[in-house]
Every structure is written in structure tokens, then in C-alpha cells.
């Protein structure tokens, strides 16, 4: 796993540094500049969720932002289904389309690498929730030959998915700024302050019996991702759903406990950087807020 963090558009990191965004040797933040900035106040709850979906800085914000994402995806799924029904191709195309929508919605609230909800992972003893596929879209057995959709069914599905996605231009409008935000998040994850606590993360996993010696100490995202990929590999090796569940139940609390000290460094840094970022890009953020709210309301009508 290798991350090549794009350097473009990361000027806000420099701004953060100039404002005195530094961490002490023990990992606790000592901020002199950003505290002088006015706190970000969303124009509405929906707008706040949208901002957190585009620019999350903590597990709590990611969860909050997932509400907007989920609402958007549900609106898109409903629009797609209506479009397909109108096209008269639902019987062929709907199962896959519905299953795709279900998968997207299930995934919307799960980030285990960048902003993992460690409390949930620990209490549920699971990294990700089960997927709730609609009955009509029950997945086929992997070894079976899939039904081949007709050309008209495929074309209708593509067209209807595109038209439903077009209900939310805010997604494309937010793209450049979200890329800029994530470039900064990656920089924080690989900062000296974060890298300083990664050996403890590795040691913690090793003490619990995980093969942690090759976990990269380059960034929190890569370290978490490496462990999770290994854990997923063990899931893949399991023959049954019960075995997968047992594997997750064993390792989820371990990961949550070991990752917590890391996130106690990452999240304060990211939250403070976010304050600067939102301040520096206030005009664009306000435009995105307005778009998100109006588009979601329009899609629900």
C-alpha cells in the first residue's frame, strides 16, 4: 500500500502551521491560532451534515455526514426505481440496481481507516455492519452464472442511474474542495506527531497476538489499512459466515483499543485544521451548503 499525496491545493495546511497549529511532544494539541477563528456554524442541520460528509474531521462528524450521504443515496435509489418502472424494464434491471443501491447505502456510514468509530467497533465487536439487501435483490450464489441483462435493460439502468445522480450537482461541485481537504488529511495522518504514536499501535496489536511487525509506520491511514486488510484476509480464509463473525468479534475490540491513542492525536489535529480550512474556503462552503440543502429537499418532493 502506498499513498502518493497530491500536493496541490494544500495551502490551508500552511495556513494552519502559520496560525500555530502544533502539537506538544506528548501528543496533546496546543493551538494558538485557530482558536481565534470564528467557529463554523452550518446554515441548517442538513447543511451541517453535508459539510461533514464532504470534509469530515472526526468519527462523530463522519457519522453525522453519513446522514446526508444516506439521505441522498436513498433519494437517488427511489428516483432510479421510479425511472426504471416508467421505462418498463424493471423486471430485468431492478434486482441489480436495487442491490447496488443497497450496497452503496450500507457503505455510506462505514469508514474504518480514516475516521473509524472506535466506540461502535468496540461495542458491536464488528468492523462493519451487515449488509441489508432488499429481498428482491438477494445476491446470487457467486459460482452461479449471472443473468445477462438485455441491452435495453442495461441502457435503461445506466440512464436512470445517471438521471438520479444528476439530482445532486453538489457532488461534482464539491469535488475539487474535497480533494483538497483529503490531501490535507493525508498529510496530518503522516505527520511527525501521528507517526510518533504508531509504534505503540503496532506493539498493542502484537501484544494481542496479531502479526504486526510489518505494519507501516508511515501514516495512521496506512497502518490501520494494513491491519484491516490482514483481518479481512482472515475473513476471506474463513469458510462460513459464523467463522467470519467470530474473527471480527475477536479483532474488532483489539483494533478499537489499539487505535484509540492514535485517533486521540489525529482527530484534534484534523478538527483544528478543519476550522482553518472552512474559514479559508467559507464562500465555497456556503455555496455547497445551499446546494446540498436545496437539492436534497427537491429530491424528496
Amino acid at each position, binding site marked *: 500500500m502506498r499513498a502518493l499525496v497530491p500536493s496541490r491545493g494544500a495551502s490551508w495546511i500552511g495556513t494552519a502551521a502559520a496560525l500555530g497549529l502544533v502539537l506538544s511532544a506528548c501528543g496533546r494539541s496546543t493551538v494558538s491560532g485557530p482558536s481565534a477563528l470564528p467557529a463554523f456554524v452550518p446554515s441548517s442541520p442538513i447543511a451541517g451534515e453535508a459539510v461533514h460528509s464532504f470534509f469530515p474531521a472526526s468519527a462523530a462528524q463522519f457519522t453525522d455526514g453519513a446522514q446526508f450521504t444516506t439521505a441522498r443515496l436513498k433519494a437517488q435509489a427511489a428516483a432510479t426505481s421510479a425511472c426504471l418502472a416508467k421505462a418498463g424494464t424493471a423486471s430485468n434491471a431492478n434486482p441489480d440496481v436495487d442491490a447496488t443501491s443497497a450496497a452503496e447505502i450500507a457503505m455510506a456510514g462505514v469508514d474504518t481507516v480514516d475516521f473509524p468509530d472506535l466506540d461502535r467497533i468496540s461495542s458491536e465487536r464488528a468492523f462493519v455492519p451487515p449488509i441489508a439487501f432488499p429481498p428482491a435483490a438477494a445476491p446470487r450464489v457467486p459460482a452461479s452464472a449471472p443473468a445477462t441483462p438485455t441491452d435495453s435493460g442495461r441502457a435503461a439502468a445506466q440512464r436512470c442511474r445517471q438521471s438520479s445522480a444528476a439530482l445532486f450537482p453538489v457532488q461534482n461541485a464539491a469535488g475539487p474542495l474535497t480533494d483538497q481537504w483529503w490531501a490535507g488529511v493525508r498529510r496530518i495522518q503522516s505527520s511527525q506527531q501521528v507517526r510518533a504514536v504508531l509504534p505503540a499501535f503496532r506493539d498493542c496489536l502484537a501484544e494481542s497476538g496479531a502479526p504486526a511487525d510489518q505494519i507501516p509506520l508511515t501514516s495512521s491511514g496506512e497502518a490501520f489499512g494494513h491491519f484491516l486488510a490482514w483481518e*479481512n484476509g482472515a475473513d476471506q480464509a474463513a469458510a462460513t459466515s459464523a467463522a467470519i463473525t467470530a474473527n471480527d468479534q475477536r479483532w474488532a475490540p483489539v483494533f478499537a483499543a489499539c487505535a484509540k491513542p492514535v485517533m486521540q492525536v489525529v482527530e484534534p489535529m484534523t478538527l483544528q485544521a478543519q476550522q482553518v480550512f472552512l474559514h479559508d474556503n467559507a464562500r465555497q462552503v456556503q455555496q455547497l451548503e445551499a446546494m446540498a440543502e436545496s437539492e436534497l429537499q427537491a429530491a424528496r418532493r
Partner: protein
Amino acid sequence: MFKIGLRGRTVTGVTAAALAASALAVATPGAAHATAGGYCGYYFSGYSSQPTDVWTVFVKQPPGCHDVNLTWVDHSSYYGAFYWDSAGNPHMSTTGAQWHSAYSTWDQVIMTSVNTGTRVIVVASDGGAGYGVHVDL
């Protein structure tokens, strides 16, 4: 990116500790990207969230140098993967969804140690008609 050390059911009976050790012992992050175009596993370009071929978007190829890594996308979004166990039950990858910025090239592990022949779908949380993705399998 992970070199493949586990092959699902072929390791049944191996102790958990040995299994765990072998899994990471062969992990070599980034090695296959040392040279441009140096993919030694199956390299696939396709679409995420493909609505009509959703169960057949990616089929894990025989062992190579890669597992299921997302290496490039044409649309910024959260991406994740799903797989099916031998009973046909769907599972989300433990790594959940991860942000991948458009046009940035890096190996993002979204699944690992996937059995040959496993059907894998890659999903983007944007809910579009399918975004272009490059996947190492």
C-alpha cells in the same frame, strides 16, 4: 498492495497464529509499483457500482502479485468492496469505505487474500451510473 499469501480454504487447519504470521510476512506494500506499468497481477479497468452487471464486475484471478487494490478512479468518492462467502452470503470488506481522490494514483487496499474466482464488487458512495476504476487483482 499485498502479495498473496493466503488462498482461502487452502489454509484450513492452519493455526490462527501461523495464518496470521504468514499473511503479513508476504505483505510488500508498494513493491509492484516500483516501475511504471509493472503490474504483475491481473490488471483490470472497469466501473464501480455498475448497476446491471453488479455481481460480475470483478472476478478474482489466479494468484499474482496483487490482491484487490484500487489504484485509480475517475471520480472522487468513498469506495468499498463486497465479496460473497461460499454459501453466497454477501460481506463488506473489513476495510469499509475509503476515500479515493480522482486521478490520484496509489494502491489502496480495499480487500486482501481474496479467493480465486471470488466475485467482488466495487462500490462508490456517490451513487452514479458507474465510475471508472482501475483495480489490481
